């Protein structure tokens, strides 16, 4: 009975080691309030380039990073 219990515990530990590892930690941005926003140029849905710095002095911008929001992934 003791052997069986030991085996169960060992199997449990093995499973923890093999499959119980935590998922990779999500990235933590280094950016904080007061930092200069990194500039970028990305294409919109019409293929037209949109540059963040083009809004400088004109408008505030809300950037919503919404990864894999519109796909099945």
């Amino acid at each position, binding site marked *: 009975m003791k052997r069986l219990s030991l085996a169960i515990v060992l199997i449990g530990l093995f499973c923890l080691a093999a499959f119980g590892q935590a*998922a990779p930690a999500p990235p933590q*941005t280094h950016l*904080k309030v007061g930092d200069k926003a*990194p500039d970028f140029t990305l294409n919109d*849905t*019409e293929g037209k380039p949109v540059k963040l*710095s083009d809004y400088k002095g004109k408008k505030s911008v809300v*950037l919503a*990073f919404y*990864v894999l929001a519109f796909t099945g992934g």
Partner: protein
Amino acid sequence: MDSFAANKAYAEKISVTFPLLSDWKRQTTKDYGLYNEVSGYGSRATVVVDRDGIIQHVEQGRTAIDPTGAYQVCDLLQKKKSGPSKPEEKKP
């Protein structure tokens, strides 16, 4: 990091009124520290950038889907743009 085609289809579906951009090369997501090299996916975040190009609000993770914080910051920026409210004149 959705594809151009996926973004376009979605934009047409909901008739978005703002630019919907595709970071297909993941460079911007990396520049903003939102890319997980291990999993190969980005993290969701909301960043408010003021007219001077300075970050005024950062919200990352699951709570980033809630626009309340960004809305409040935008409201403050709008008030800042309008200038300080004039003090009420005291009537004699």
